[in-house]
């Protein structure tokens, strides 16, 4: 059991090391990379590598030419928007996905079930940026219900905190909806399948025979046991949603770290791209690591592996 945990932690350390090294070596390996013009007076690679590591520890990620600011500052400024977008969508698609998955399994074969199933399978086939574009056209331009870009109204000074919050939520709605709808399918289907197999079990029959209410059985007996396989995959799904923000933020010009990725690519601003890369890579690793731990806490069987 101890060795299992240690192997995993060592694995994470190796991956962090690989990610940082990748970030260092990529610009130096590419034939026409941004550093190809450097002269021979540059220090040896090992020396550069050590300097790079030390700088990284101090939060020095280089200078962003397109934003004309240190990469670290740019990242910090953008991070809150990405966290708001991913956080709100993740909370919604996980809770709603589990709820609808349970309802679907309960109403198996009925209209509700078939309708939800078709809806979510089709939605999951939409690339986030394409769905986002359709929303901008319909809700943004046609109906003019929501802002079409950004996270706040520019050049407007709201006197009340309430007005500011309302404005932020108004801007958040479409990007969050896009991210939620393109991510919810996996967790919905997972819950549905997991619930279906649990509802077949004998102890559910027993509970029914005891005369317990249907909703009580779903909540207390079925969902509880159906949750384990779902938790193993929550990390994977959260990972998908985190990378999904790159595309959603690009479409809605939502000023988070995801927008920095496409901005940096368009402007050939490699230090900024590398900084954003570190952010996304570490965010996903953190989610995976947490999910691993939570799963171990919930299911003692895992430790015996």
């Amino acid at each position, binding site marked *: 059991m101890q060795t299992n945990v240690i192997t995993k932690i060592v694995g994470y350390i190796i991956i962090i090391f690989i990610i940082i090294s*990748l970030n260092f070596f*990529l610009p130096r*390996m590419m034939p026409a990379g941004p550093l190809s013009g450097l002269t021979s007076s540059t220090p040896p690679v090992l020396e550069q590598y050590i300097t790079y590591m030390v700088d990284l520890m101090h939060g020095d990620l280089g200078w962003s030419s397109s934003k004309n600011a240190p990469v670290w500052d740019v990242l910090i400024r953008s991070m809150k928007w990405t966290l708001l977008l991913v956080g709100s969508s993740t909370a919604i698609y996980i809770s709603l996905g589990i709820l609808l998955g349970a309802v679907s399994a309960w109403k198996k074969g009925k209209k509700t079930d078939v309708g939800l199933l078709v809806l979510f399978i*089709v939605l999951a086939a939409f690339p986030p*940026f394409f769905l986002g*574009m359709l929303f901008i056209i319909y809700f943004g*331009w046609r109906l003019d219900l929501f802002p079409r870009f950004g996270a706040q109204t520019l050049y407007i000074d709201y006197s009340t905190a309430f007005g500011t919050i309302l404005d932020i939520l108004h801007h958040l709605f479409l990007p969050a909806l896009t991210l939620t709808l393109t991510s919810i399918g996996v967790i919905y289907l997972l819950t549905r399948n997991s619930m279906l197999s649990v509802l077949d079990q004998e102890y559910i029959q027993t509970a029914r025979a005891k005369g317990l209410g249907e909703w009580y059985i779903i909540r207390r007996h079925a969902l509880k046991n159906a949750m384990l396989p779902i938790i193993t995959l929550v990390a*994977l799904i959260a990972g998908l949603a985190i990378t999904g923000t790159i595309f959603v933020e690009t479409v809605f010009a939502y000023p988070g770290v995801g927008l920095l990725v496409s901005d940096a690519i368009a402007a050939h601003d490699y230090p900024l791209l590398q900084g954003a*890369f570190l952010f996304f*890579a570490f965010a996903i690793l953190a989610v995976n690591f947490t999910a691993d731990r939570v799963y171990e806490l919930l299911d003692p069987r895992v430790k015996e592996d």
Partner: protein
Amino acid sequence: MKQYKNNKLGLVGLGLLIFFLLIAVFAPYIAPYDPHQRFDSTEHPNSEHLLGTNHVGQDILSELIYGTRVSLFITLFASIAAVGIGIFIGLVVGYFKRFDFYLMRLTDLFLTIPKLPVIIIIAAFMLPSVWNLVFVFAIFEWAITARIIRAEVLTLRHRNYVEATRLFGAKDSHILAWHIFPYVVPLVFVQLVLVSRYIILAESGLSFIGLGDPTAKSWGMMLHDAFAYPTIFISDLWMWWMLPAGLCIVLTILAFTFIGYALEEIVNPSLKKSPWI
């Protein structure tokens, strides 16, 4: 085969995929123009250009037809390469105990590494080309296949008929090729479909944020061009420039989803797991 024929969803998926494959193969015969040929820019649909022309005056219908080629080429080549690597590693690891520890740690490593960010950063530093995209996807998509094949081989290698073949003095390579590989073929097909589904989604995203090959435009690259055009949403341009390319991506992904569903039901009838993770 017979089981697949009875699965309506599977047939719809297969039909859609074959439709797009035919368009990809016969693109030069179907497309009205060379996709690089230039006319007046942003023309509305007319009898000469059924879907109008784009910002530099290329016929959008021809672009869409050739885009089918690029999108499917990247998807199929990359998924075949990725699944190929996965099969090889899975077979070797499952059959020869010696390599198990190190290769499985390597597989775990590739499973934990944040795939899409890594793919994006590598693609950004390489020259944008179709082959480079195939290469990156192949390198980062093999791990799940390897793990699934290994699990299957582990159960197969202790079956009586395999032990018997070994007692008769058959070489390991012979046993792997003739007595183990045929039994993992159904799993290989499921993996091919699931990996393809992921790659076409990821490829369209990469092209959309500007990492596609500008000389061989995929559907994602068309959406990139359309989205960058200043008045795409205000005018009606999106209807024939953006919508068809986006719908093609959606339909291809649905095709892979349906085929995956049908195959998974055959391979694994008791466990109807979600086919599109």
